[in-house]
Structures are given as structure tokens and as C-alpha cells.
């Protein structure tokens, strides 16, 4: 006998996201651009509002109560994220502006200090520009070799090719856990193991993974892990760099100034210990606190439950979209997060997006900051629908009707 799982309470959850009752172009707002940014639950909106109304005070060094409270709340948020990622200690959690800044930080500090001429950096063919350009710049500056792990026609990485590329010259592997343009979930745990076997350090771009699945940085054994707050139901302007203590301690600071020093004289400055060493200047403290609330919210829903429900949405949408004549899904890896990139024969994605917009449907049309991926799949751009746990099958039906309308306009 099997016990059936309780259905995911999506209708109840939708009530917690005020924007979902909005209209766009006089139509019910169907938000399917979650891979670009997520909507915010009331808990986060109210936490920010309460903070700014009643609690606002800068962190650190304040002797008065409100400042001490802010400082404590920020540190609590750091601990929440530590547990969320299962990091060994909260000092390994560095607050940055977003995943992009986190990668730039690692490239500019770890990369600049340790990588030497002719060392190799491996990235994959399905990276976001944020996980390409910082390495490319570093490679140019230091005479490194940037090598690209190829992707197969279905959107899976070619792991055999990857293993062959790993070698004594590989210093760093920088890979995404989930592709933002195809949805592919990469087997990063196995990839990290292989990289470590070859003596390489691994950075994982988790921007598209953290909203959808449980992440355990100790189990993955990654050296660095990065994500953005706004994609995980938190505020904009805050993100996280996780790094193993040994790396963070060996790295020079990224930016210098206030809050990251131990002592300053005009002759010499000694830097603070981690995490403060990497947090120069006033951070986005209200947003950090809001991100902590977002993490609490996600935990209250349960990442496994979210994952299961989103997978249901993905399967439903894949089945429905596959039936539309002239529609080709780009990225059909067996293991995918809840997003679908597609092409409509003879219709440019921007025309698709414009028509869908008039039906209240928000999708992304373009290259998704992944031009090399687009080139690999021979398309200038795709239309991308990405789903969150507050989306419904009924909304996918609206998308399907919208696409049928697009085809009708351009037939």
C-alpha cells in the first residue's frame, strides 16, 4: 500500500504573494519569469517595511540598542544561511550584492593571487555570462587558459570530455549547478569529486539551484558556492558567497575600507577576520535581514515539497508544450529544474514575448545572458518560461493558449 502525499497548498501560498493578484495589460498576471527574479512573499515585504519603519539603524559599533539589534539580526541571517547551505560555520558566509559579485570577488582575490600563467580554468558551455566573463578577464590578465566543457545536444554536459580535460594544469573549475537558459541540473557533486581528484578547486554557481532544491555545501564539498537573494524570494541587492575557511583566510580582501579592518594607521592596516574581511563598507543590512526571512519562509514550505511540486509543473508544461506544432524545446536533459526554453518555428522570441505580454503572461525572450549556449544550439535567442512553487497548472494552460494565439498571429 502506498500513502499519497498531501497536495501542495498552492492556493494558500498564492495568497502570500500580493503581486499575483495584479493585472498586466488588463489580464490576470501570469508570472513565468522566475529564473530572472522571484516574487516576494508578504513575510519578506513586511519584514523590510517593519525594519524601515521601526528598527532602522546601521550595524556594528553602535553603542545604542537599535544598532545592536541590527547587528544581531544580520548575524542571525548569516546563521540562517549557514544552516540553509549546511556550511560548517557562519564565518564562511560572506554577504555580497549577488552571485555576479561573488564570482567577481573570487576571481579578483583567489584567482589573482593563486593562479599562474598557463594554469587552466574549466567552465561549461552552458554558463551564464557572470560565470564566463570574470574568468575570461582573469585569463587575459594572467595568461591562463580558459577551457570549455562541451554540452550534448540534449543540454547535458559531456562528462567524459570533462574528465579528460581535468589534469595537472587545472587550477579551477567554475560550473553552474542549474543552467539558467536550459534548466539542466548538472551532477556537480560528481564533478567536484573528479575535480578534487585532479587537485582543482571548484566554484559552483548556485543562482538557479538554491530556489529549487536543497543544497548542502559540505556534502557537495565545493570550495565556493554563490547565489543571489532576489532569486530566492528575498530582496534585491544582496547575495551570498560561501567559501571554505581555508580559502577565505588565504585570500586577500576584495574591497577595502570600513568594517573590514582590525586597525588602521597611516603606515599599515591589518584586516579583520572572515567574514568581515570581505564586507567593506555598510552592507545592505535591511536586505540581509529580509533574506533571512525569505530563508525562513522557504524552510516553512519545505525545499523537498517545493521541489516535488515544481517538478510536477515542469512535467505538465513539458507535456503540453511538446504537443504544440512547430514548438521545439531547447534543453531536454533528464534532470531539469522547472524552466523551459523553446523556439517557435519562424517566429522570433521577441514577437512571442510581445504577444504573450498582451495576454498578461510574463516570459523572458532573448539570449538569457548565455550567448555561447544560444550559439551552441544554433538559435539567436529563445523564449523561456520558468516556474516557481506559486505557479499553477491553470497558468500553464494560459501560457499554452497564449502560444497558440502567437502562432495564429504569425501563421
Amino acid at each position: 500500500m502506498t500513502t499519497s502525499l498531501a497536495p501542495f497548498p498552492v492556493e494558500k501560498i498564492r495568497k502570500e504573494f500580493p503581486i499575483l493578484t495584479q493585472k498586466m495589460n488588463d489580464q490576470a498576471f501570469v508570472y513565468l519569469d522566475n529564473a530572472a527574479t522571484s516574487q516576494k512573499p508578504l513575510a519578506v515585504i513586511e519584514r523590510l517595511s517593519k525594519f524601515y519603519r521601526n528598527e532602522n539603524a546601521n550595524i556594528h559599533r553602535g553603542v545604542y540598542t537599535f544598532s545592536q539589534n541590527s547587528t544581531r539580526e544580520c548575524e542571525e541571517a548569516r546563521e540562517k544561511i549557514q544552516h540553509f547551505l549546511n556550511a560548517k560555520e557562519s564565518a564562511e558566509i560572506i554577504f555580497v550584492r549577488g552571485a555576479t559579485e561573488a564570482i567577481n570577488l573570487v576571481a579578483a582575490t583567489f584567482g589573482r593571487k593563486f593562479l599562474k600563467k598557463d594554469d587552466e580554468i574549466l567552465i561549461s558551455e552552458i554558463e551564464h555570462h557572470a560565470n564566463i566573463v570574470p574568468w575570461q578577464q582573469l585569463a587575459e590578465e594572467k595568461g591562463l587558459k580558459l577551457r570549455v566543457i562541451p554540452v550534448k545536444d540534449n543540454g547535458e554536459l559531456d562528462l567524459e570530455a570533462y574528465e579528460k580535460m581535468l589534469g595537472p594544469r587545472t587550477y579551477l573549475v567554475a560550473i553552474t549547478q542549474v543552467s539558467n537558459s536550459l534548466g539542466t541540473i548538472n551532477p556537480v557533486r560528481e564533478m567536484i569529486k573528479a575535480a578534487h581528484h585532479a587537485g582543482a578547486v571548484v566554484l559552483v554557481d548556485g543562482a538557479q539551484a538554491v530556489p529549487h532544491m536543497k543544497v548542502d555545501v559540505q556534502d557537495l564539498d565545493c570550495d565556493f558556492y554563490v547565489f543571489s537573494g532576489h532569486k530566492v524570494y528575498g530582496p534585491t541587492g544582496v547575495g551570498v558567497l560561501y567559501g571554505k575557511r581555508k580559502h577565505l583566510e588565504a585570500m586577500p580582501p576584495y574591497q577595502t575600507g570600513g568594517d573590514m579592518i582590525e586597525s588602521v594607521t597611516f603606515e599599515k592596516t591589518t584586516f579583520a577576520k572572515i567574514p568581515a574581511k570581505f564586507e567593506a563598507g555598510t552592507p545592505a543590512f535591511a536586505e540581509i535581514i529580509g533574506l533571512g526571512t525569505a530563508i525562513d519562509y522557504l524552510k516553512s514550505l519545505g525545499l523537498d515539497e517545493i521541489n516535488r511540486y515544481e517538478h510536477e509543473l515542469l512535467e505538465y508544461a513539458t507535456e503540453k508544450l511538446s504537443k504544440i506544432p512547430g514548438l521545439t524545446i531547447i534543453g531536454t536533459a533528464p534532470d531539469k529544474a522547472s524552466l523551459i526554453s523553446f523556439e517557435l518555428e519562424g517566429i522570433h522570441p521577441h514577437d512571442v514575448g510581445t504577444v504573450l505580454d498582451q495576454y498578461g503572461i510574463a516570459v523572458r525572450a532573448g539570449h538569457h545572458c548565455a550567448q555561447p549556449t544560444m550559439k551552441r544550439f544554433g538559435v539567436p535567442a529563445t523564449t523561456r518560461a520558468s516556474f516557481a512553487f506559486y505557479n499553477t497548472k491553470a497558468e500553464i494552460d494560459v501560457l499554452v493558449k497564449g502560444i497558440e494565439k502567437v502562432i495564429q498571429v504569425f501563421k
Partner: protein
Amino acid sequence: MIPGGEVKLNDLYQEVILDHNKRPRNFKKIEDANASSHGKNPLCGDDYYLYLKKDTSGVIREAGFTGQGCAISKSSASIMMTLIEGKSAVEAEKLKDAFIKLLTGDSVDEALRAEVGKLKIFEGVRQFPVRVKCAALIWRTLEDALKNNSTQEVSTE
């Protein structure tokens, strides 16, 4: 679907525009062109090459284009092909200026509609501000091609 959205879409994607998108005119490279330019909007991926063959007095005798992009950019280019052959550089420039005014000016009057002729079907683009650059791309490319020293790459983003 409320009528508003449908009306706007019908204004944007008029039959003539859809027809030019499907069957672009002069969609070819002109091998012996003596003026050309490349128009590219990297963010949205519209990407066209424009070729002109001018005679000794500067009149455009032949025009052609190649490339790819959305329905608005492609039909704008295709309709341009039907309008600029036989025009002098000055006349083509004047038409370009009027067309840009149709897309981005504060208002459109009958005089302007008359001046742009069949390009007036792009008036609906005004309701879609993010798509203005699509309609304008090939005309900025023309502007560049007509210069004595083309910059070789133009963008309207």
C-alpha cells in the same frame, strides 16, 4: 482576451508587416554594392547587413539586405527595400528622418503620415516602446551606409 490588447496587437502586427516578415523583399546580398553597413542589436539579436548600389550621381539603384531578427525589424527592412530604390541619398535621409519621427516623435499628424507613405503602418509600434529600436534598426543602418565612411556597425539599443 480583452479587446484592448487585441487591438494593440493588430495595430502592431498588421497584415502587410506580417507579409513582409514572411516574404522579405530584396532579401539578398548585392555582390557589387558600393555602400553597405551592418546593423546589430546585440541584446535582442536583430542582426542585418544592408547593401546599396548607388550610381555616379548618388541615386540608389539597387538595395538588398540579409540577416535575421524579429518580425518588426525584418518587415521594416523589407519595406525599406521597396521605397529607397531610385531615391537620392538626400531623399532617403529625409524619409529616414520622417520615419524616426513617426516612431519616436511626440505626436503624429496627417502631414507626417503622408510623408512616410506606406511606412505609416508602423505607427502601432509607438504603443510598444521596447520595440521601437527594432523598427528603427535598418534605417539607422541606412544612415550609416550612406555616409562616406561607414562605421560598419550600428545599433539602436
